[in-house]
């Protein structure tokens, strides 16, 4: 295959990626957009096997079939065997951490590619090539280790709260300076050892950089690391002389940056606050008397009676609904109420769950009609006319501390103002605080009733109690 044809097909794949991102930005075209992206990626991968790309170092012979073809195909097969079942089998609740993991391995792959290319080029590398290689190794490693930490936080393999250590910001700053210093050393001295030290330091920096980020902010960081990985791919494209990689990587880097900002805006957070907020926020007084205060807990019958006499009910779903896989049961409850003439809406917080849009995806799975899902800005003014707000496994997104307690981890985040409703019902597993780890005053409000238990079994009981009325 000629270079021209190879590059033309690469261009076609680049266009496919632009169309993919464009498609993914609108609900109706999203699925098609994703398929176009997959087509572009498949095409780009296929075509590499039919073009003998000259080695940048000029050392290896370029001929078809590719050298090490068997190994290459074998490695792709291994990747498929791991990746496809993981993506197929994952529960809806675990999707955010899977995306984080996929992003991390992408960053790791980019860093490895840069290291190999560097070993291959040896002393013949131009300064520009070395600079881009250093960039790719640093950012790729940060993206890899940072994503692993976000994965562990979301999977609850480690604490979801911000991890703060003594002199944290100085340690992080010192590590960053060391990374940059060693990067400079690699550029000036050229050697394998400095490059490996650089990789190790960058991995460390990735860990330190994500540890202080609190639970609810983790999706924003995943998006940021996603943009990072995109930039490393673009830098690899420069070193490998591949226009396709430059286009694809830059597109992801740019759109990922915008997306990160949009997500931060949706949560009322600044990106800076997300990353470094834990160090500047005042320490929460955790020894408060709050835990011992009485709460009003009710039975499923109490809840059913309250609902039966309501005119308007707003359901506020959260992560607990996803964990319990209760989306079908909640729909059953909503349908039952609607059939009795009760006005029912779902109040959707943009970041309820573990990722933006989590609840929309979950409720869509249960075929909840789209017009019943009401976004925060629209539903908030209606809570005053709402008889009952049912909060199902949500906590932080309704926590008034976001408005009243400066310095708490979620301060400034817009919330669903369920406190304006005449009655509030919380379906909770326990009195444990939400993902951000802060106490919710609303639980002690006199108009709040708590129904403890798994969301699905609680809802099932409420449905049968309501049917019996």
């Amino acid at each position, binding site marked *: 295959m000629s270079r021209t044809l190879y590059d033309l097909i690469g261009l076609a794949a680049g266009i496919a*990626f632009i169309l*993919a*991102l464009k498609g*993914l*930005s609108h*609900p109706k075209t*999203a*699925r098609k957009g*994703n*398929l176009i*992206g*997959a087509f572009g*990626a498949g095409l*780009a991968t296929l075509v*590499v096997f039919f073009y003998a790309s000259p080695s940048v*170092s000029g050392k290896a012979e370029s001929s078809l079939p590719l*050298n090490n073809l068997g*190994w*290459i195909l074998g*490695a792709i097969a291994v990747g498929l065997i*791991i*990746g496809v079942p993981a*993506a197929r089998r*994952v529960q809806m609740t675990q*999707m955010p951490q*899977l*995306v984080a993991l*996929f*992003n991390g391995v*992408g960053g790791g*792959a*980019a860093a*490895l*590619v840069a290291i*190999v*290319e560097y*070993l*291959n080029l040896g002393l013949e590398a131009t300064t520009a090539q070395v600079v881009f290689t250093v960039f790719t190794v640093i950012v790729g490693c940060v993206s890899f280790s940072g994503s692993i930490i976000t994965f562990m936080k979301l999977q609850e393999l480690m604490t979801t709260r911000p991890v703060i250590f003594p002199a944290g910001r100085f340690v992080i700053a010192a590590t960053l300076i060391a990374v940059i210093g060693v990067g400079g050393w690699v550029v000036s001295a050229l050697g394998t050892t400095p490059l490996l030290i650089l990789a190790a330091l960058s991995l460390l920096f990735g860990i330190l950089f994500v540890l202080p980020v609190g639970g609810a902010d983790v999706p924003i960081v995943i998006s940021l690391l*996603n943009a990072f990985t995109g930039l490393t791919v*673009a830098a690899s494209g420069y070193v*490998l002389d591949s*226009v396709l*990689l*430059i*286009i*694809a990587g*830059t*597109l*992801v880097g*740019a*759109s*990922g940056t*915008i*997306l990160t900002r949009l*997500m931060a805006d*949706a949560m009322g957070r600044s990106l800076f606050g997300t990353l470094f907020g834990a160090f500047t926020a005042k320490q929460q007084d955790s020894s408060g008397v709050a835990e011992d205060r009485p709460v009003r807990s009710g039975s499923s019958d109490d809840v059913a009676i309250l609902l039966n006499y309501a005119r308007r009910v707003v359901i506020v779903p959260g992560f607990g609904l996803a964990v319990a896989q209760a989306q079908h049961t909640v729909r059953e409850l909503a349908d039952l109420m609607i059939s009795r003439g009760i006005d029912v809406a779902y109040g959707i917080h943009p970041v309820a769950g573990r990722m933006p849009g989590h609840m929309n*995806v979950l409720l869509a799975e249960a075929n909840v*009609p*789209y017009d019943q899902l009401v*976004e925060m800005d629209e539903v908030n003014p209606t809570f005053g006319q709402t008889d009952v707000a049912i909060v199902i496994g949500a906590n932080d997104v309704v926590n008034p501390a976001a408005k009243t307690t400066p310095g708490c981890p979620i301060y400034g985040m817009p919330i669903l103002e369920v406190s304006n409703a005449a009655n509030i019902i919380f379906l909770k597993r326990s009195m444990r605080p939400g993902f951000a780890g802060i106490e919710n005053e609303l639980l002690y409000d006199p108009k709040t009733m708590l129904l403890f238990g798994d969301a699905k079994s609680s809802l099932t009981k409420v449905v049968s109690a309501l049917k019996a009325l």
Partner: protein
Amino acid sequence: MDAMAILSIFVLSVFVGFEVVSKVSSTLHTPLMSGANAIHGVILVGAIIVADHSETNLELGLSLAAIVLATINMVGGFVVTDRMLEMFKGQKK
């Protein structure tokens, strides 16, 4: 390739990237992030190229590891995005 051409491609791609996602509802943030995530899996192309050029066992080993990781990123990413978006079907008013 000359530096100006690369710079032009880079800058134009930045603008296209900004433009295509500037107005997207929060509902689609996650699928969009996931889809973009899958797209940077094309680093697989780079991994295959360096595997082709590998001369030592170390280079080959590292590039094969990169191929495995990149394949997981790319294929897993598109499959999981499709699964998310599958949930949105049948919502047309």
